[in-house]
């Protein structure tokens, strides 16, 4: 056990976590150059394109240290976005230490802090690593000062590297061996295994990533998921090298996987404790939470005959993404679809992109909503996250909406614009302090509904990319909520309805009308677009009638080509949704979701 090190790399988005991971894998000989693909651990195309990790992966690196001994370094990869902070916390709980990766040019950011706090809560030993020292704008000494003085971390341990060029990476591996403690635990005690992730293998079912805290686990044993209260028989245990490698057993201190005939990833919950059925540990490990969906949106296939395909695709995604929930939904405008729950807006976007990309199903999404708590006049309580289930306003006694505490880290000069942004978004109880000179950590309580809309984009734009943001849900507060409907040529388009605060409704309505006007192509007749609350029109605009659409020349040589153009035009029409007699393209539905640019 003394030759095991379990660690994570925590970093702000884009600070080079995946690149560093790849470099360490390469250095430890886990992969040949031929196999080397940038960002090995980021499997999904979307992850590679956006440079973020969504699904964490773990790998065991065999490393011969300067002391001549062979070590097993378990790198537990973590997702790097606010939507996934619970997943991050469970991954951290599986480790004794963490590399805190900081960009030499960007310095400390909000997520760096948030992740550092998470690491500290889990009592992890921290090795600060300053990355990208090869950049012209790198200021490693200044960043080192920030780390020492502002974060209060040990300056002696700071390592500098360029994950891109490989400079300094060997030293980091040595530091992991010398500075991080080996795991503790007793292989002879009752089994306590922490689930920190799960993924789906089409042949083997769920592959559960675990950290064995105490005890030993072998194939053939009966295990119990303590929170789920389900039992399975272990088929295989092993460790993650570049591929899964079966082992005879896993014991205290080790990180590895379990295959136990668990059909759905959703049947395993990150943070749950696995123990032996016959000799259970006295209590589950602390820190377990049920994953909570906070953003909801309905997903419809553009073509109604793709509903079955969408259902299958969601089932498949769900296999690997336990945080996604969905149930049937219907819309007069869009037909059959699914109401889905997400951890946050990024999670939503990732699911949308995967459905379109991996399953090739063009989609329409409805405006994302949070979950409201509504009390009716007769004291019935209900939760509503779908505008179509919004009760008659006359029957409502009270509505409450979720609030978050946002932590925003910005250079001082952006204080004004960020304050304004938060106030526009109905922010309350703002507070700030200087965690380091020239930087402000600004906290503010905001309705979640205002944040899921386009807050992060806005923050990025008003701070020219310097603002970073993290949030946690705090409580529910009373809200004056209304349902905003969109009418196209007097027909209500149910899929465009949204729940919004009364004070924001006119603005939202106006924006929706304007977006639709941009995206709905001119048609044979004038199209009136209106936004309404109940019978009250709050915004309106028109799409003028198309007046001219004719090809001047068409002779013998052009007939095929011109016909094909018309066929294309026809196919384009087919992809639109017809509401009344108006054809509405997918882009129009999406434009209502997007923030104004």
């Amino acid at each position: 056990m003394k030759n095991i090190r379990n660690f994570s790399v925590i970093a702000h988005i884009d600070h080079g976590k995946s690149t560093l991971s790849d470099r360490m894998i390469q250095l430890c000989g886990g992969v040949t150059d031929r196999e080397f693909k940038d960002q090995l651990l980021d499997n999904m195309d979307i992850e590679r394109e956006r440079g973020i990790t969504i699904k964490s992966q773990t790998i065991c690196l065999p490393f011969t240290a300067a002391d001549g001994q062979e070590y097993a370094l378990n790198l537990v990869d973590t997702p790097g976005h606010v939507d996934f902070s619970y997943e991050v916390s469970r991954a951290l709980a599986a480790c004794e230490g963490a590399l805190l990766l900081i960009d030499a040019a960007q310095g400390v950011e909000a997520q760096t802090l948030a992740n550092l706090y998470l690491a500290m809560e889990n009592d992890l030993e921290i090795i600060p690593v300053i990355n990208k020292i090869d950049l012209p704008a790198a200021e490693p000494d200044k960043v080192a000062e920030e780390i020492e003085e502002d974060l209060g971390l040990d300056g002696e341990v700071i390592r500098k590297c360029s994950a891109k060029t490989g400079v300094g990476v060997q030293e980091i591996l040595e530091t992991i061996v010398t500075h991080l403690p080996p795991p503790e635990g007793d292989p002879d005690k009752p089994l306590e295994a922490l689930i920190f992730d799960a993924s789906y293998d089409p042949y083997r079912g769920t592959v559960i990533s675990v950290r064995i805290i105490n005890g030993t686990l072998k194939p053939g044993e009966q295990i119990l998921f303590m929170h789920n209260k389900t039992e399975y028989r272990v088929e295989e245990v092993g460790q993650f090298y570049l591929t899964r490698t079966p082992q005879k057993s896993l014991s205290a201190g080790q990180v590895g996987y379990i295959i136990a005939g668990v059909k759905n990833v959703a049947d395993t919950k990150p943070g749950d404790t696995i123990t032996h059925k016959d000799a259970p540990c006295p209590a589950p490990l602390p820190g377990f939470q049920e994953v909570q969906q906070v953003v909801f949106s309905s997903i419809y296939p553009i073509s109604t005959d793709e509903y079955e395909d969408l259902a299958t695709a969601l089932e498949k995604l769900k296999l690997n993404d336990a945080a996604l929930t969905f149930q049937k939904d219907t819309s007069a405008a869009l037909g059959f679809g699914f109401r889905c729950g997400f951890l946050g807006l990024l999670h939503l976007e990732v699911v949308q992109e995967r459905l379109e990309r991996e399953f090739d199903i063009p989609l329409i999404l409805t405006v994302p909503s949070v979950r409201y708590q509504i009390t009716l006049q007769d004291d019935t309580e209900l939760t509503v996250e779908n505008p179509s289930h919004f009760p008659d306003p006359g029957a409502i006694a009270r509505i409450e909406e979720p609030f978050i505490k946002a932590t925003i880290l910005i250079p001082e000069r952006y204080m004004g614009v960020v304050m304004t942004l938060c106030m526009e978004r109905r922010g309350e109880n703002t507070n700030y302090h200087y965690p380091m000179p020239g930087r402000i950590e600004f906290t503010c309580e905001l309705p979640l509904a205002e944040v899921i809309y386009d807050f992060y984009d806005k923050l990025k734009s008003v701070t020219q990319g310097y603002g970073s943001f993290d949030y946690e849900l705090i409580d529910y507060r009373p809200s004056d909520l209304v349902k905003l409907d969109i009418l196209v040529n007097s027909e209500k388009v149910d899929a465009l309805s949204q729940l919004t605060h009364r004070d924001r409704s006119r603005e939202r309505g106006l924006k929706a009308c304007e977006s639709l006007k941009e995206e709905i192509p001119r048609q044979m007749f004038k199209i009136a677009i209106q936004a309404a609350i109940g019978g009250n029109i709050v915004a309106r605009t028109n799409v003028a009638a198309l007046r001219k659409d004719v090809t001047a020349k068409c002779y013998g040589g052009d007939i095929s080509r011109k016909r094909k153009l018309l066929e294309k035009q026809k196919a384009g029409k087919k992809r639109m949704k017809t509401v009344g007699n108006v054809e509405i393209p997918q882009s129009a539905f999406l434009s209502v979701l997007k923030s104004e640019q």
Partner: protein
Amino acid sequence: MSDFGLYLHIPFCLKKCPYCSFYSLEGRMDLVERYVQAINTQLRFCAEAYRNHLRPMTSIFFGGGTPTLLPAAALSRLLSKCLERFSCADEAEISIEVNPATVDRSDLAVLRQAGFNRLSIGVQSLQDAELRQLGRPHTVADAVDTVRWARTAGFENINLDLMYGLSGQGIQTWKTTLEHALELQPTHLSIYELTIEAGTPFARMEEQGTLFLPDEDTVLLMLEETQQLLMQAGLQRYEISNYAQPGYQCRHNINYWQNGEYLGLGAGAVAFFNKTRFTAIANAEQFCARLEKGQEVWMEKEKLDREAAFRETVIMGLRMTAGVSLAALTDHFDLNAESYYSDTLHRLIRQGMVRIVQGRLQLTAQGFLLANTVMAELV
């Protein structure tokens, strides 16, 4: 017996016009002799190979490019070769496109003598500034001369090509051009709205904002003025862009819009017979090389199934004011348009885009403005 056309393509141009996206060869006059030779070979080959599909030609059309970059004598020889190889109906319409400043009095006489009986003159504009803008290598005076000489040479059936919706063009300048054109007493006018085709210099200029195209209102007004002025002058609109005195509609083009059969010769030319559309390789050099080696020049053959061919015939026919005969469609395709299109058609009728008059499906005035939108429902 329905019509059968012969089209002969001559791809050479002095200079490529900045709005043109058609296949043409700038310069390359060195290829002319070889090309003519290749056409002769193709003529011989087609007359033999398609013997069973051909009928007496009811129209012949020499188009381009700029056919008149070839000497009049060469064009005459080409025509006589055509007439030698293929039988020709009595009173066949034999047209050739000519560009001002590429022909003189005697050339036109030679062409008339050879048997051409219809001229299509690429006038485009009767404003010198506009001609320069369009990159046309001729002047207004050249165009007027060409028309006058054509008459002297014995051409009675004369079409002028004109364009509107040009950069900087106002309604008044357009009217002036039209009036001036009518003074030349053409029997036929082809009047095209300038279309910005992707990949052309005009497309790039539009992107850069250096093209000042008139707004939609102005363009619509220009079209309205056109129809009114031409109506008064006795030229009736019979297709989206074509107007003629009674009896002078272009028979060759009507055959296209009726989805009739035709043979096409030359690089990039298209032929349509035996329910198949053939497209020749659109590269003059390779076209020649293939014929020299006795290889096939058709790069594409398209055979639509019955329903697709039916729909194509409908949309092509709708380009004409006369529209398309429902009875003829039923005869030809064994499909009844009214039941085939059912709801879509009835909606379009309700929306005032199409109508059925005396057994013919036609676009309404409104439908003509939105022809593509309508056709995209019927294609």
